[in-house]
């Protein structure tokens, strides 16, 4: 089968790439494996790879101890909520920038991106105080508002780059065909840009799901999402490897699974629409 030089080269590359890939993936794999071990097996020396007594005990214990599902639900609400809200605000803005560019469009876009460079610590205290005084502290609403705002520049930027790929003539055709602005956006632009919108959405769900500055600073117990749930394992529970692994696996599994099912769009989205 491996009859020529090309095939040998391919085999070599396959081995190399798989080794590197597995190496990079290993910490995740190891976490998942450890989550099924008993605490004793988890710290066994030498480490046990597959030959241990598989158990689900850690998962039930983690759920009982720190109510995983409530944190999971909080994460779902804030990441979906902020992404949908962000899209609703960003789609019209990106439409305007992509199809009715003015002299200052580039500047507005750059300015929006630059707000993303505003270090969160620069506005942490006022936001904390405003939230405390308005009762938004430790609420899902508050987190949705903050995450929408911090990810808005990225959503606008990504949608803008995707919209730019759509020929303006098609929107003009819709205009000639009697479409109002809203039907132009709803019936023509949105369906055409659906792959790009999906990529944007996926990336933002991940960014919001994993956001750990605001979610840690602005929540205590009630609205704490998975990032905070996991942070509570920093010590001394962190030394219980099996439980830490179970909690970690549960925190990252939803995103890993979502990523697995939406590979193509996600890969496109992960480049932030910035390279083609």
């Amino acid at each position, binding site marked *: 089968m491996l009859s020529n030089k090309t095939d040998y080269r391919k085999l070599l590359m396959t081995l190399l790439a798989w080794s590197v890939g597995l190496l990079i993936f290993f910490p995740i794999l190891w976490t998942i494996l450890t989550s099924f071990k008993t605490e004793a097996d988890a710290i066994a020396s030498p480490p046990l790879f597959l030959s241990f007594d598989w158990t689900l005990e850690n998962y039930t214990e983690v759920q009982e101890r720190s109510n995983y599902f409530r944190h999971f639900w909080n994460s779902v609400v804030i990441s979906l909520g902020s992404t949908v809200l962000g899209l609703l605000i960003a789609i019209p803005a990106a439409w305007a920038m992509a199809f009715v560019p003015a002299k200052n469009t580039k500047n507005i876009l750059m300015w929006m991106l630059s707000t993303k460079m505003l270090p969160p610590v620069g506005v942490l205290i006022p936001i904390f105080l405003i939230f405390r005084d308005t009762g938004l502290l430790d609420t899902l609403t508050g987190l949705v508002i903050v995450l929408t705002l911090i990810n808005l520049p990225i959503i606008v930027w990504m949608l803008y780059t995707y919209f730019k790929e759509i*020929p303006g*003539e*098609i929107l*003009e*055709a*819709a*205009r*000639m*065909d*009697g*479409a*109002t602005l809203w*039907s132009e956006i709803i*019936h*023509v632009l949105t*369906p*055409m840009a*659906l792959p790009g919108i999906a990529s944007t959405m996926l990336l933002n769900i991940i960014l919001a799901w994993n956001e750990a500055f605001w979610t840690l600073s602005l929540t205590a117990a009630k609205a704490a999402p998975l990032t905070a749930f996991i942070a509570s394992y920093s010590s001394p529970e962190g030394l219980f490897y099996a439980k830490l692994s179970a909690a970690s696996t549960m925190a990252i599994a939803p995103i890993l699974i979502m990523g697995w099912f939406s590979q193509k769009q996600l890969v496109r989205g992960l480049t932030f629409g910035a390279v083609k």
Partner: protein
Amino acid sequence: MGSIKLENVSKSFGTVEVIPPLNLDINEGEFVVFVGPSGCGKSTLLRLIAGLEDVTSGTISIDGQDATEIRPARRGLAMVFQSYALYPHMSVRKNIAFPLKMAKLDQAEIDRKVNKAAEVLNLASYIDRRPGQLSGGQRQRVAIGRAIVREPKAFLFDEPLSNLDAALRVNMRLEISELHQNLKTTMVYVTHDQVEAMTMADKIVVLRAGVIEQVGSPLELYRQPANKFVASFIGSPKMNFIDGEAASKYQAHTIGVRPEHLRFSRESGPWKGVVGVAEHLGSDTFLYVTLEGGEQFTVRTVGNAEFHHGDVVYLSAEPENIYRFDENGLAIK
């Protein structure tokens, strides 16, 4: 229904005036072609009529009504774009139905009209496919179908054939002409291809740098070009020009002779030249001749003329077909 009148219409982008004030009448049922080199403002002019761009000054009336401030959709015009601008996520049927849906017609009415358009344009066999699955010619038909169903006062075509290959272009040209014969609706058609203009138009508008150089029927432009620009733009291959002494014999600054109006001989004639390239097309032969004065002349002759590189020829013009121009390039009547 379907007359369009432009009065003192001008257009500037920022400080750049791409169309100085111009006047133009398009009569009901006419097939008008805007032709000119790229960048001459012909597409902009069409977009002004469509309402996709605002005029900087002047008025556009459609059927005697001032339409200058009316939104594109309300002008009652339909447009076929260069890229066809089909909606890629909709089937052919939905594409054609879109303007009717936007006009909030009831479904039965929409179906009836779409089916009729499909029949007229022969696209029933692929009506449930998406644009991505169609060939260039089929897409073109769908774009026309989408325009027809609206029963517009006038059709606007923006270089609709430029994305098709040569053979298909000839076919679609005929189909559009035929459509015009059947519908008798006003059509405004933009192209840079003078062949399209000559073959399809009732009236040709030649534009250069936003200025109308001449308006007239194809044969008027061919026979009585108003200036050197029109003379060289209309007709293929291009008209030959010669100035200086040869022209002053005819009391002109420049004279022009079309390739098909040159006679030649191997022995004698007023203009001596050497054949550079001879293109034998079978039906015709084109000779590219360099005259003694350095001018390049194109000669069109019969298919079986045996000329080759380096042959010496003597050219003369049919006296009744010499075009005379003054120093400003304007035709001398």
